[in-house]
């Protein structure tokens, strides 16, 4: 008798799990946003504000990276793909094969700040110097007007959107020196730079803090104003890709992100608003 009770319990548990998997969750309207961790804070805060206004909409926001977001848009597992880089030709081809038309919505601007340890006397670098440092041509701070100290180059993982943008804007797609430290997130780069006197790194403008020093690039200070007026050279657009021109609840959400309220949230998240 005891044995059969256990068996029934197990059976019930198996059935319950089965039911949970097979029954879809019902919500009036649900929206899945996935992709770049750079865009994540924007998507997150906008989704929260949007759900406060529309209680019948349920938005789930996930990270994973630009590549993951776009791949999910292509295979139909998300409605909006966050990306910190434009979609690639390869991905466009794949989207077409799956009958998905990736539609680009620019939602914010982001500047990349080049950072050094606060004790480093170097205040400004040209893009040419940054390139030489990252490709290994310059390896001591005294070659760019600093102390006699070895430069420790810190970069993002070569698959991240921030790296791709930096690589295009600053390095002309040349290879970063092989012994550069590769960190997995903006915070990790800032963290490593703040603890390493000879380090150089780069992060999104929103990750500038007092623990690191942002240097001028080509004589222009890394500030939001300079990104908006176009004088700062290490800046990029942030995207939310949708399948076709946004419609319905997707349109409502994108419109909200682009609205004054949404752009305020963009600024709060540490990025540069479009307006």
């Amino acid at each position: 008798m005891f044995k059969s009770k256990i068996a029934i319990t197990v059976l019930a548990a198996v059935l319950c799990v089965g039911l949970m998997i097979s029954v879809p969750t019902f919500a009036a309207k649900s929206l899945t946003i996935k992709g770049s961790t750079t865009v994540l804070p924007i998507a997150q805060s906008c989704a929260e504000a949007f759900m406060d206004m529309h209680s019948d909409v349920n938005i789930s926001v996930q990270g994973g990276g630009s590549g993951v977001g776009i791949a999910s848009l292509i295979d139909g597992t998300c409605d909006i793909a966050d990306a910190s880089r434009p979609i690639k030709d390869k991905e466009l081809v794949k989207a077409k094969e799956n009958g998905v038309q990736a539609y680009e919505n620019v939602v914010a601007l982001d500047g990349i700040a080049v950072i050094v340890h606060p004790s480093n006397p170097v205040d400004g670098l040209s893009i040419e110097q940054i390139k030489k440092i990252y490709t290994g041509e310059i390896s001591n701070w005294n070659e760019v007007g600093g102390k006699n100290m070895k430069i420790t180059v810190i970069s993002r993982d070569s698959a991240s959107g921030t790296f791709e943008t930096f690589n295009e804007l600053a390095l002309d797609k040349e290879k970063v020196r092989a012994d550069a430290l590769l960190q997995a997130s903006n915070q990790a780069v800032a963290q490593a730079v703040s603890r390493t006197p000879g380090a150089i790194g780069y992060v999104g403008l929103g990750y500038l803090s007092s623990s690191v020093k942002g240097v001028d690039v080509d004589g222009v200070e890394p500030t939001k104003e300079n990104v908006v007026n176009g004088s700062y050279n290490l800046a990029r657009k942030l995207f939310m890709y949708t399948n076709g021109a946004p419609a319905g609840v997707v349109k409502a959400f994108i419109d909200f992100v682009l609205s004054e309220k949404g752009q305020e949230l963009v600024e709060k998240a540490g990025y540069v608003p479009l307006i």
Partner: protein
Amino acid sequence: MHRIRERIYKVLFTLLAFASLLFLVGITLTLFIEGLPVFKEVGFFDFVLGKSWYPTYEPPDFGILPLILGSLWVTAGAVLFCVPVGVGSALFINELAGKRLKAVLKPIIEILAGIPSIVYGFFGIVVIAPFIQRLLNLPVGLTAFTGSLMLGIMATPTVCSISEDALSFVPRSFREASLAVGANRWQTLTRVVFPASASGISTSIILGMSRAVGETMTVLMVTGGAAVIPHTLFQPVRPMTSTIAAEMGEAVMGSTHYHSLFAIGLILFFITLIFNVIAELVSRRFRKKLGLGR
């Protein structure tokens, strides 16, 4: 009626028992299906022995030798740390500690095993890395050595508790015989108990190594992540696991880069498989030697 019910249960539980086999087959198949294309696209030797890892450049380089060596260096360093500490504490617990001390020490060491690896990572970044950097006057504290130290601490409970089991399996009669012929405690320990449990201790070390080589989060956080062939323990390295973890999220699905990450997983899988097979063989020998037919 009763017999039918019994048969249903039997089928049900057989299925559950085979579930893990199913998972193993599924995981292995996925690794092979997603990983093998790389060997065709890049070539097996160019992949495994290639010296540069630039997966996203045009043209890309898919050489994982720096990553394999990164993993092996960090693991070797971890062994240097966890073997003396783990085996040493096992010897202490088994041979010297009184019952009460043993009752306190063993659980404490096992708690180490329960600390999430990301917590080890935080500890490594915030405490150990700056300390090592200042102590050795290095340009940066995120090095293979930092990773080794963290992994060594993580693998210590594995090494300690399996070694301790091995020591306690040595039959009492062995010790009594040794002491009876006039050997002192040290001689008994080094000449009798230790050799008798040597293969059990080796097993513990190998299992500790496979724990270390597969660890991901901690090494991602503390080893710096530079994909170069390491020449010393005190430079940044990029182990295989952290490469997969850091790049999987951004790799374009279906690209060579994507497949190469699976192939790295496949190679890692074989490395730990070899470790585990060796551990199993060694421990079998050990049981035979002591006449424990378990």
